[in-house]
């Protein structure tokens, strides 16, 4: 077997991974970087982000305000040292991306334009119309092309962390084109593999978001932090789950129930201002409340009978018609394109049907503010990591900035680690890689395993997650989901593949992805079962109050033979003592 060696290895070629690669390209051109990605980098899910990326740059804004918005939005579950660092570094990172050519929307004077976003007191969200993630990803990808010291392994699928004497030294990966398992080793390995929204049945997330890096770390003994916190975005298109960006509300769009009423005012989110009022849309209020509260309001409105019944479940209406065609075309053209193509409606003249949809996993691989995990040599950044700045509910437009800030930081920490760690024992990593190759062949290519199918098990998994671990949860619903996941994990051993080919075997990668999804789902459901309080996106009907005495702590889920072990770690509080989350009043 071939051994491929780099100084730093990045797993995942989305926003965080590319930012990490460029950091090393710029700052340490003598180091070699490998980027292993299961898709071509510009296919990564960063590409689908629409609304924008937050950073304080305007004179009417302040770093403290961005901190407070983020911390209160997180229901005090974010580490405040991490948030402060993030907010401080955000403007520099965003400006850096501007210097790399990102086509930010502009003010008439040529400065970068900002827009309001949910849960933010002041407009501070940079945007490139409503394809912000697309433009950021392509700017990063095209910039990364210029560094000779960055080697890409496009369409290589990581299957296992190589760990020698407790130190991470790279991964094994399948080169999809040949089906060969390779060892890619490095002194520092950075996981940038994104989230895991695909463990739910109704999600904005692309097919590739299967929690790969989270599971790789979890299996190697690294804890997953705060996995119980899952973000439902309030406005997805029914049926497909296609995201209709929060920017449509930041630009003045309103949410109405079946009576045409702005029902959010019944759910402690403030009073509705007239759409022609110069103060509309009011920040931290109504349609610009945080995503967890808006998604919960939808469920309550449904209980009250105010939602509209449709073929793909209940929905409400997002109304942007008053914005007018010119502004819609300028500010949210992609919303119009998506609505026309996938819902057969034109938002210039018609109401957009929307419902809450799984969008983001706040939890992830446990890291500190430098992206270091508890395992030496292993780092993580982006959605797959949990630093944590997002706590119990992420604010819209913080995650794109997070990719940049923590992608760069993780890269620097990995470089630093590489200067002091020992050499790689080639023999030991090769032995592990050979063993991994045999595991895959034995598990998936030997006929006669059984009669389970990937699609069948995957369908049962996503259904039980939606039913038991959705917007509102109970001990009972979560226990049932935990039991189902346990059963599905056992049945996974009976998966029989039809495809035994070595060339681009996507049935094999789907099986491996399903295995990752089962791990992540297990950690998520058990963490949720153990948290007997309601906070942010984690709402327990049987424990409706926030309980700071017991649970102002991050959960840490450790992989085990049976159920995961759940441990806790205190949240870091610096200048913002836990308080009430207030929306809708000035």
């Amino acid at each position, binding site marked *: 077997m071939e051994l491929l060696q780099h100084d730093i290895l990045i797993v995942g070629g989305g926003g965080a991974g590319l930012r990490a690669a460029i950091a090393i390209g710029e700052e340490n051109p003598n180091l070699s970087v490998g980027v292993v990605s299961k898709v071509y980098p510009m296919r990564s899910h960063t590409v689908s982000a629409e609304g924008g990326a937050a950073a304080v740059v305007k004179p009417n804004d302040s770093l403290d305000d961005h901190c407070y918005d983020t911390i209160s939005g997180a229901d005090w579950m974010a580490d405040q040292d991490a948030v402060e660092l993030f907010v401080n570094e955000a403007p520099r990172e965003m400006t850096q991306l501007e210097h790399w050519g990102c086509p930010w929307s502009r003010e008439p004077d040529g400065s970068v334009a900002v827009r309001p976003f949910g849960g933010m007191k002041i407009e501070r969200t940079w945007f490139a119309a409503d394809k912000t993630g697309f433009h950021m990803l392509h700017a990063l990808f095209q910039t990364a092309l210029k560094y000779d010291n960055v080697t890409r392994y496009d369409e290589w699928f990581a299957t296992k962390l190589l760990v020698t004497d407790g130190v991470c030294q790279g991964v094994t990966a399948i080169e999809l084109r040949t089906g060969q398992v390779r060892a890619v080793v490095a002194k520092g390995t950075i996981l940038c593999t994104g989230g895991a929204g695909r463990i739910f049945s109704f999600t904005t997330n692309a097919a590739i978001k299967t929690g790969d890096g989270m599971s790789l770390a979890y299996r190697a003994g690294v804890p997953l932090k705060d996995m119980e916190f899952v973000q439902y975005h309030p406005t997805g298109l029914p049926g497909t789950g296609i995201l209709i960006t929060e920017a449509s509300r930041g630009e003045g769009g309103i949410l109405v129930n079946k009576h045409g009423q702005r029902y959010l005012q019944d759910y402690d989110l403030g009073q509705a201002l007239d759409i022609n009022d110069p103060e509309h849309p009011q920040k931290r209020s109504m349609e610009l409340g945080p995503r967890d509260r808006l998604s919960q309001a939808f469920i309550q409105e449904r209980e009250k009978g105010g939602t509209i019944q449709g*073929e793909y479940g209940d929905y409400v209406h997002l109304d942007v018609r008053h914005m007018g065609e010119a502004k819609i075309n300028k500010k949210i053209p992609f919303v119009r394109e998506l609505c026309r193509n996938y819902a057969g409606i034109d938002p210039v003249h018609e109401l957009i049907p929307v419902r809450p949809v799984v969008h983001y996993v706040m939890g992830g691989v446990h890291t500190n503010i430098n992206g270091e995990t508890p395992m030496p040599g292993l780092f993580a950044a982006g959605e797959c990591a949990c630093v944590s700045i997002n706590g119990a509910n992420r604010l819209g437009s913080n995650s794109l900035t997070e990719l940049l800030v923590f992608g760069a930081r993780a890269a620097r920490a990995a470089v630093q680690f590489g200067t002091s760690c020992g050499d790689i024992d080639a023999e030991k990593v090769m032995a592990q890689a050979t063993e991994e190759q045999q595991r895959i062949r034995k598990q998936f290519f030997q006929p006669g395993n059984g009669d389970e199918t990937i699609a069948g098990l995957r369908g049962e998994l996503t259904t039980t997650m939606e039913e038991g671990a959705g917007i509102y949860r109970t001990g009972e619903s979560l226990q049932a989901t935990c039991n189902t996941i346990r059963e599905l994990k056992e049945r996974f051993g009976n998966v029989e593949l039809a495809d035994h080919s070595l060339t681009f075997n996507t049935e094999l990668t789907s099986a491996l992805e399903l295995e990752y999804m089962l791990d992540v789902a297990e950690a998520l459901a058990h963490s949720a079962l153990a948290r007997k309080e309601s906070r942010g996106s984690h709402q327990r009907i049987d424990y409706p109050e926030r309980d700071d005495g017991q649970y102002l702590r991050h959960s840490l889920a450790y992989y085990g033979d049976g159920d995961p072990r759940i441990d806790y770690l205190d949240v870091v509080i610096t200048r913002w003592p836990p308080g009430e989350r207030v929306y809708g009043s000035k």
Partner: protein
Amino acid sequence: MAASEPTPSDKVVVLEVFRYRPEEDEEPFYQTYEVPYFEDWVVLDALNHIKNEIDGTLTFRWSCRMGVCGSCGMMVNGDPMLTCAAFIRDYYPATIRVEPLNYFPVIRDLVINMDDFLDKLTDVQTWLVPKEEKPVSEGEYLQTPVELAKYKQFSMCINCMLCYSACPVYGQHPEFIGPAALALAQRYNLDSRDGGADERAEVMFSHEGIWECTFVGDCSRVCPKNVDPAGAIQQAKVTATKDWYRSVLLPLGKKKGKDA
């Protein structure tokens, strides 16, 4: 995002799919599958139905299912399309033929090899070469909405490769840099922050560059994001021609700066 299956339908649609498994097949062949018909299904949904329920060996790329990741381009009844944006209802009841994108080597079934394109992006330097260096600490480069509008359309390319599979020149001369890469190079040339046009010129204006283009315009016709690569190439030709005339006709020292 996910497409859920709505209420069952009695109607079916037939897909005729290009198959090629290099380890088993001497030659490619077409395989026929019957899938349920749903009003809001796209061709990609039908392919996923085949993969999940009928034949796990069928191989294709996909990810976002919302027309922005650029993974799922294929030939649908002979036209290059994003299969996540090709609605079955637009073909029904006719049989739908699905093939890999034209002019690219096939790795397997509907999966093409696009290494060549990625190398070409590097060749034409699709990144910003700052016109003037400015430290990040001094803030952003100013760029007015009018300046942004000059290149914005060409920055919308999702690298889906439909334009290459529609380009007869690329079909005959695979060394042609091709529509998407040239449009992206032009995107940077037109960016008010960029000063790299001269560095890109050597490759853009080479034999494999803009002069290969015979302005068929099919690239722009099939582009799902209205990037208009043919327009980008025409613009680049005009600029190159003006530069050439200036260099020949104007005495040394009187040349003006580049006209973008």
